[in-house]
């Protein structure tokens, strides 16, 4: 036996973190981080706040997270059985899978032939949104706090009033010939 099994909430959080980390991988938060596989440098979806976003009622998913956890771990156990992989039972089955196998399983669950595809695509969409949009935070606040996703993308900072303006936006010169069939109103003929 390994270390004691995580309690229900932690179990769910670890499972969903491992899923989010498969969508947008990040570096481990600590050397003993099990949920985050450490497949990429910098923060990933977990550090970006994926769990906080998924637990936001506005998503419509917050009441389904226990079901997601159970289903994902059920699929992970079946996957491990199918591939003869031993699983460390001190962590949820999906967390126990190596990163490459987490990836293979998520590919299968979101693949065009899978009957639960829509559910897993939905979970992946929100995991992705935590990273790419920080949808659980005001964007200006997220940027000010160095949100890993927006920062990784190079999303630019707003002005002092929290709004974006780009006074420099154009090369300011003609860069192609217009189509010869353009009408006087600027439309195609």
């Amino acid at each position, binding site marked *: 036996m390994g270390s004691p099994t995580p309690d229900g909430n932690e179990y769910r959080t670890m499972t969903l973190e491992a899923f989010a980390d*498969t*969508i947008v*991988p990040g570096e481990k938060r600590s050397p003993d981080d099990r949920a985050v596989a450490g*497949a*990429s440098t910098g923060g*990933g979806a977990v550090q970006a706040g994926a769990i906080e*976003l998924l637990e*936001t*009622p*506005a*998503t*419509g*998913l917050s009441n389904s997270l226990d079901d997601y956890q159970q289903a994902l771990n059920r699929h992970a156990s079946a996957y491990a059985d199918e591939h003869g992989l031993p699983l460390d039972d001190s962590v949820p089955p999906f967390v126990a899978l190596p990163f490459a196998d987490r*990836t293979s399983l998520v590919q299968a669950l*979101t*693949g*065009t032939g899978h009957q639960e595809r829509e559910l897993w695509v939905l979970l992946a*969409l929100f995991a*992705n*949104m935590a*990273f*790419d*949009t*920080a*949808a*659980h935070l*005001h*964007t*200006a606040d997220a940027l000010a706090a160095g949100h890993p996703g927006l920062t*990784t*993308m*190079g*999303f*630019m900072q707003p002005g002092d009033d*929290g*709004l*974006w*303006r*780009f*006074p*420099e*936006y*154009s*090369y300011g*010169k*003609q*860069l*192609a*010939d*217009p*189509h*010869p*069939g*353009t*009408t006087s*109103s*600027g*439309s*195609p*003929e």
Partner: protein
Amino acid sequence: MTNTESTDVLIVGSGFGGAIAAYHLAAGGARVTVLERGPWLEADDFDHDFLLGSSYTRIFDFVVGDGMSLLGGNCVGGGSVVYFAAMPRAPRFVFDRQGSIGRRMWPAAIDRDVLDPWYDRVVEALPITQQDWNDVTYAGGLFAAACEHAGRTANPVPAAIDRAKCTNCNWMMSGCRFDAKRSLLLNYLPAALAHGAEIRPLHEVQHLARTDDGGYRVHYNVIDDTDYRVHVGSGTIDAKIVVLAAGAGATPVILQRSEATLGTMPHAVGRYFSGNGERLNTAVVNEDRARDLLGLKRADGRAFRANQIGKGPVVASWDNLDGSLPEHSRFSLEQLYFPPGFGTILAQVPDATGPSWFGVEKKELVRQWQSWLTVFTMVEDDNEGVFGPPPPTGNAARISQQMLGRGTISYRPTANTLRGWAESDAVVKDILERDGLARVMPWTNDLVGAYTVHPLASCRIGDDPQTSALDDRQELRNHPGIFVTDGSAVPGALTVNPALTISALAERAIPGIVRAAQERGVDVRYGAPSPDGGTSGRRGVQAQLPGLMRR
């Protein structure tokens, strides 16, 4: 509510089709009530913010179907509030398209020459202006230079944008904070209100029934202003005329649900849906090649890295809009910006060794986000979309409090549509990968199916009752007094952004609606000027009025 209210003209939806009808009918003297399912926001309400619950989730709808996802507006002003304001006219050959029906899809009464004066009315009203190269953003300039390098032409796109007010913030999908985008909130709708029209936000029409006097009773739910899954009331309004303009994703659903009370609907209601043949490719630009190959240099010395800067699409390439080419081989390409979230999840890694849309390689792609260039393709699709039985309310089973829902449409692209996408993908690749300028991949259709920001044709006009739901004046066949003026009336894909064509058709439908209202005893006349009082557009359509107001 126990008492049924009454009005002369009840309009469902306040986007282009609804706002144009509301203005003209109110200005002509009719009592007009507009029911809009979304909230009513104005400039100060439009947030630069991706937080769930900010304006972009309040005013935007994303309905996932089986094989097709629809993106559209959900607010007073409809699509005009969330769109990118690109406003070209449809090319001449589009009106001769046959699609899959073996005959001209458009009514014989309509071609480009017929529609041009109606286009002019809309151009005057919004107004729409030509942009020049000083308006063209870095992303548009890069696309233009790449087209030039590939031996192609590229045009600045006509747009409904006030250049003096635009800050190039690229938050257009959240609504324009600066009132630079000339949405309907700035022209037709305030003019309609000034003439006494009433607009009720958060009123979602469910179905129609007939009244004893030959009019219609419109049943609606009142939607909670934060959690759109919650209904906080319901009611009915009687009207002599109903104008449906709920959008191509909702108008057919209302009619399907009304079949129990109105009787059989025309066969084409909820069929022949077109996604306007839309497709996206994302390129990752090699900054050094952009500088060396295309000579591009920003003031700070960088070549590009400006994905975030701009105002949606500003440059289009129309070399494949050639009427001599076979149908489905004609398309336009447009440089575009989508904000992260929807604009990142579907982008794929070129030559991925693992998953293409998530995982390690995708994260590396996202690191280069400021060097992304997105190209929007509009081909001729095959009107493949069919709506299933309507959901209990609205046009989708809502998943999230706002924005996200599951709809009933199914869409299986035919070989024709797939060919159009393949041919256009190849052209995009040729333009952008030439001489190592960029790496490019189309967005995946495996997650949410194909997708469209321009749903069309689900309740379309035509001459053939088997394949069109509306006659050439946009009245619903066999249900006199119900008109449809939104994108669902457009017969098929247009190969360009459709908002101006939807609007021109709505303008053209007004004389017929006025005539029908008169016949039902409404004291209303046709002939309002442009919302700002201009009269040149009105003069231009004068010659067509007798035909449109015939009995």
